[in-house]
């Protein structure tokens, strides 16, 4: 088992591509985007499925080395900007070291 960092970013669906582009540029070997049904935070409840898709959120998951995770932290200005997002990084282990 090999230790890695699991980066989890909850972000507006319209911004998902900008986030995955950033992860690519920082050297991530891959990422996964998951849809979000609903959530509640400082701005109240957000439910997916409004006609314009403006309230839709996604989770961008990325498993990466500690070095890449540090780069993501350093890029937080670009990652967040004026936009709401939740970024968390946790420790995880993976089976195949050469994939991440």
């Amino acid at each position: 088992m090999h230790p890695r960092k699991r980066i989890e970013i909850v972000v507006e669906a319209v911004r998902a591509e900008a986030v995955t582009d950033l992860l690519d540029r920082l050297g991530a070997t891959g990422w996964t985007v998951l849809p979000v049904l609903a959530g509640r935070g400082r701005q109240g409840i957000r439910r997916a499925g409004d006609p314009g898709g403006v309230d839709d959120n996604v989770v961008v998951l990325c498993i990466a080395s500690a070095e890449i995770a540090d780069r993501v932290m350093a890029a937080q200005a670009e990652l967040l900007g004026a936009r709401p997002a939740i970024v968390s990084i946790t420790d995880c282990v993976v089976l195949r070291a050469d994939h991440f």
Partner: protein
Amino acid sequence: MSFADLLPPPVLFFALGFAAAALRSDLAVPDALAKALSLYLMMAIGLKGGIAVAQPGAAAAMLPALALGVALSALMPVPAYALLRAGTRLDRATAAAVSAHYGSVSVVTFAAAAGQLTAAGVPYEGFMPAVLAAMETPAILTALLLARRGGEQTTGGGRELAREVLLNGSVVLLLGAFLIGWLGAAGAERQLSPFITALFPGALCLFLLEMGLTAARRLRDRGRGLDVRLVGFAVLMPLLGGALGLGAGLLAGLSPGGVGLMAVLGASASYIAVPAAMRMALPAADAGIYVTLSLAVTFPFNILAGIPLWLWAARAATGAG
């Protein structure tokens, strides 16, 4: 005037959806179906318009109506922005974003008005769907100029903005279907009539049921950020826009049905295309405000009060009774 004229089935389905969500019923329309219905409505409106314009002489007066529609969409954000800045506490970015919604138009409000005209047997110019498509995006540009003038940061370069304005999904489908209908003319009508005409009122009812559910849920989840002045704007602005649209329709020399639709276009506010564009271009603006005002206040107001008001005003103003 009978009960059915005042409250046609699509309006009643909207009310049903609104009441169901307000009472916390578990009634829901799947997202994918709602999106498909909205595509269907745009496609049917575009095709019907194109087929109608293919009739000899039917395209006359299209250019003045198109030009006035574009001018209306481009100019309406200016009074909207001024009203918001003077009368409410909205910041510049959010005021500019809201003003874009009110300059642009709502396809479903148009569909509901056109449905009422058809049900009442009142004809209208076939090219009105082209006017609808032309009015979707000029307001976005004006609002971004207003925001930039106010010193707000807008994101996305010229290319992204051009893509948003020219290749916006609803514009592509409306204009594409309009052209296909125009080119296909009589053959298209024969083939597609059951799909685009017979199914239309039912699809509109189902979509408005979903809109009623969405509007009521939105008010419940996000309505707390609204104050009396914002709600006042969301009712006042469609009245101003509708009056301007009525004037533009008369100036373009449209029929009573056409003038009514132009007024409804002026009164309507976008809740699909513009929110997405504003989220990209003006990220600092509060989407909770602009989507809620347009979708949960102005849209119901137009469906319940605005459409009958403008269709009546158009008949009165054109002397058609």
